[in-house]
């Protein structure tokens, strides 16, 4: 039948791209519907990928053969490993992108994806058959059929943009908004709300006085995002740094009443970690200056993204305060900043697979789940896409990542057990197993399970296998190689004479570099840095990692205690009405998940445990 697919993905943003590609990789006949093919993979806000926690997510996407890492490796114009001076667990890769190259390579990757069809059309509703989801309704009345649907609507779901008191309907500047889907979702009984985000103005590089500005450069040895990329070959370019001053602040303060946020026009909550400049002024009233990064949007463009001054003030005020800043006195403003408000679904409506609990076959990913960020969106897209494909193919399987396996798991678990009250962004502090969930070992954590579910190619799996085998044998080598006290002391190290010391023991000493280790054994020189690094980290973190593994063992014990879907919480003795409500709302799948629901008491969990063990 014409127009019949396994999976339809609605939306071509970062969640949609990963979702349709993952679904297709798993072998589902997939359709990507977007209202504008030319903006597939658009970076609507900051032209950058990665950062702390976010970079970790991109590596995890890559470990499961997703697209984001491979694309940014080709489109990046400034690569920096954040926190290089700190330990490996808290290092996060970040790169600025050439906006148009990113889009280009993303689109190219999708075109090259087997099983995937891309069609330009706006989706305005669902097609239901026997009360079951059967497809989507297009704006022109046509229908497309599929067994599973992934919604990645981003800021387009009833999107409204604000510049001062002026409001424009649309999901991105110059584009339409999607109004048809919300009524369907509400009718299906989903709890929904509004969230807010914003994007700063864009400046003309040719009108900035760069000579007076401080520069920020990328790393000398740029590191790739993808485990499959050998080397970053793109030319690296600098950013400029300017800052707000008292004059800037004075202008903004005088115009507080004109901004959409404070005048009550915007009701949705915005992210605290990405505050508008007026927010910063209110919350940190004593600061007289804030740093602004001037980030080029690409090689062949004069557009500059001023990172740090998103605002919902009117255009004339924006113009006034921007011109007070050093280097920007005569800058031409190419596009004014705006705030945007959009619909989201309470993520407590979802399960660990990002499926809507009330509507089998419907999956949600990205900002519709209350998150912010390309990386958060991409990671969810990947997970939702895989699950939609598994569902459509009647595989009887589902795929999820738990908190001890990846940041993807941390994010999804946080979302579905706690809900959101501001756009959710990833931080490394959100993970209780931070020393284990590192950007450098995402492949070791996820490639195998990705391969087993069918979303990792044979080629990547072979590379992964070889790497793991090398790490293992090198690790064994280092553990078995015993070094005498005399040799250790000859290297200027002090050593306790209490038992044999292996090469790996020595690696764990503070401030012991690879060169020192090579002095003990010149064979080490042959070892690839990526291999060496893994064994070294294992040594340096050993005591702490042991504790994390123990914690994980306890965590898994609760995670392995499954709760049946048809459980009736009213039947459990000793549960208060409040606890029954909390459990019923979230419908936890495991005892571990139940224990993480906001407001649930340990006693309630124990009662639940008692019940399921015997039911």
């Amino acid at each position: 039948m014409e127009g019949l697919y396994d999976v339809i993905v609605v939306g071509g943003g970062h969640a949609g791209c990963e979702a349709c590609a993952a679904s297709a990789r798993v072998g589902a006949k997939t359709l990507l519907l977007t209202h504008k093919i030319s903006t597939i993979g658009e970076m609507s806000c900051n032209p950058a990928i990665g950062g702390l926690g976010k970079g970790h997510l991109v590596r995890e996407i890559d470990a499961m053969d997703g697209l984001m890492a491979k694309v940014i490796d080709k489109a990046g114009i400034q690569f920096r490993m954040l926190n290089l001076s700190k330990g490996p667990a808290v290092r996060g890769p970040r790169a600025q992108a050439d906006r148009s190259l990113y889009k280009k390579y993303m689109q190219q990757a999708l075109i090259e994806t087997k099983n995937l069809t891309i069609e330009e059309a706006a989706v305005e509703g669902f097609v239901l058959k026997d009360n079951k989801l059967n497809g989507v309704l297009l704006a022109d009345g046509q229908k497309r059929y599929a067994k599973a649907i992934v919604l990645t609507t981003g800021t387009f779901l009833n999107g409204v943009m604000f510049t001062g008191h002026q409001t424009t309907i649309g999901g991105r500047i110059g584009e339409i908004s999607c109004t048809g889907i919300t009524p369907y979702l509400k009718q299906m009984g989903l709890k929904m709300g509004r969230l807010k985000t914003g994007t700063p103005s864009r400046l003309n590089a040719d009108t900035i006085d760069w000579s007076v500005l401080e520069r920020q450069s990328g790393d000398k040895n740029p590191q790739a995002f993808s485990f499959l990329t050998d080397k970053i070959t793109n030319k690296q370019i600098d950013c400029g740094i300017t800052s707000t001053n008292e004059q800037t602040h004075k202008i903004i303060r005088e115009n507080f009443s004109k901004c959409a946020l404070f005048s009550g026009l915007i009701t949705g909550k915005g992210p605290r970690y990405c505050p508008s400049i007026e927010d910063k002024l209110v919350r940190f009233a004593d600061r007289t200056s804030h740093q602004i990064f001037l980030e080029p949007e690409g090689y062949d463009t004069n557009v500059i993204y001023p990172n740090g001054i998103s605002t919902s003030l009117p255009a004339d005020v924006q113009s006034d305060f921007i011109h007070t800043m050093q280097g920007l006195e005569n800058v031409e403003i190419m596009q004014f900043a705006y705030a945007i408000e959009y619909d989201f679904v309470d993520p407590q409506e979802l399960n660990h697979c990002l499926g809507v609990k009330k509507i089998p076959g419907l999956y949600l990913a990205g900002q519709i789940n209350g998150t912010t960020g390309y990386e958060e969106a991409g990671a969810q897209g990947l997970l939702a896409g895989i699950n939609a494909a598994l569902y459509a193919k009647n595989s009887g399987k589902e795929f999820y990542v738990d908190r001890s396996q990846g940041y993807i798991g941390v994010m999804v678990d946080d979302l579905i057990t706690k809900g959101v009250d501001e756009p959710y962004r990833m931080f490394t502090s959100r993970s209780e197993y931070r020393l284990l969930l590192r950007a450098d070992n995402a492949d070791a954590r996820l490639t195998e399970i990705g391969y087993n579910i069918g979303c990792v190619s044979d080629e990547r799996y072979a590379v992964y296998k070889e790497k793991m085998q090398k790490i293992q044998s090198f690790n064994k080598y280092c553990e078995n190689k015993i070094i005498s006290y005399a040799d250790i002391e000859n290297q200027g190290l002090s050593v306790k004479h209490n038992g044999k010391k292996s090469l790996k023991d020595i690696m764990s000493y503070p401030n012991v570099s690879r060169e020192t280790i090579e002095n003990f054994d010149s064979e080490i020189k042959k070892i690839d840095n990526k291999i060496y690094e893994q064994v070294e980290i294992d040594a340096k973190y050993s005591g702490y990692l042991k504790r994390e593994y123990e914690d994980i063992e306890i965590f898994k014990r609760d995670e392995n205690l499954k709760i049946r879907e048809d459980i009736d919480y009213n039947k459990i003795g000793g549960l208060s009405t409040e606890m029954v409500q909390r459990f019923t709302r979230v419908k936890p799948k495991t005892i571990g998940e139940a224990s993480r629901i906001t407001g649930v008491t340990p006693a309630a969990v124990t009662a639940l445990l008692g019940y399921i063990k015997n039911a």
Partner: protein
Amino acid sequence: MDNKTIYALSTVFGKSGVAVFRISGKSAFNFFTEMTELKLSKIEPRKMYFLPIFDVDSRETLDKCMVVAFKAPHSFTGEDTVEINCHGSKAVIRSVSNSLSKIKGFRLAEAGEFSRRSFYNGKMDLTEADGLADLIDAETRLQQEVALKQMSGTLFNLYEDWRSRLVSLLSYVEAYIDFPDENIPQETVLKLENNVFKIVEEIENHIAINKVEERLRDGFQVVISGPTNAGKSSLINAIVKRNIAIVSDIAGTTRDVIEAYVDIKGFPVIFSDTAGLRDANDEIEKIGIDLARKKIAEADFNIFLFDAENDSPEIFNEYITEKNNYLLVGNKSDIITVEKRDELIQKGCVLISAKHNENIEAIIDALFNYFIDIYSSSSAHLITRQRYKEALEECLCNLKRFNLSKEIELSAEDLRLACRAIGKITGRVEVDEILDKIFSSFCIGK
């Protein structure tokens, strides 16, 4: 929850003739090696042994008990289990509990934990499970009651203060880690060490000044002071005669001080006297008086003894402070007039005759009432208190590992674990709490 070996008193504290302790976990049988003379190889499961048990450190005999071991999986929890049946007196329970807490890998069980372990190990069936909800309910109510009583006051504020300070410190570290491009002032991070040291010091002091526990172990200090002729030695002798003198006449630090270690109705008490208080004529005696003053100030309880015939209780006024717990005792009651007697009683004095052994009971009773008072106020919730101590010690252990010379994420890990440990007493640490602190303390985000 972890995999440690857990123990708890299974009977109600202080209300049963026989108290039962239950130990469960991988190293439960270590109880035998640590606290008895029974060899591990000699233990037969399900056989009751009658044997003395010792304190882990002092090797002092705590009680003679009936002890039985169950080998996994043939026990209530499905783990290795030991049950100790000891005497139900508070002192015995306390000392056994204290000793168990010192065995490596042992910790106090949490509410419902024995039942929970028994679930994990598949030891409970449907009928038992129904009862469990009630059990948990009861435990929770008890816990809440205990929590309300104990945590409403200064203790809660104290622990919460430490925890929130630690969360603040952690939020600095986390901000420093998660927002590398922001201007987190380096000096803020560097100040952390001092702040952590300060908290370590405070917690250590708190654990150390847990006086009652210490006194129960080492004895309450009761100091008898008064003029040279008041009859201090006779009074000590009279008390010693009536009670069990554990050790008597230990040589004191000065010629004049004698000490006696006496058991008063179950409380260990060290009596000592001081040099005569009034006769400060020469240098040597002045030194003696300074020493006496110091002893009076440090005593848990003071007995101010005077010659009822020739002296008045006012001579002690300069030694009495608000902090003192004291009793004014007039000696030689046998030779004073009725008027004098009435006058002194009016002033709140106890009248005795050490020589004729008269009314010594009044002193004993006053002491006992005082001891029982502070004892019950501090150890009414003995088990809970022990839980606090364990949590605080775990917190300390992590804080002591903290330093800024190692990788910052490891320092963060130390702080996280320390917060989590206190959080076991006052409530959990939520990531959101840390993020809240970060966003309110720093201007984060571009």
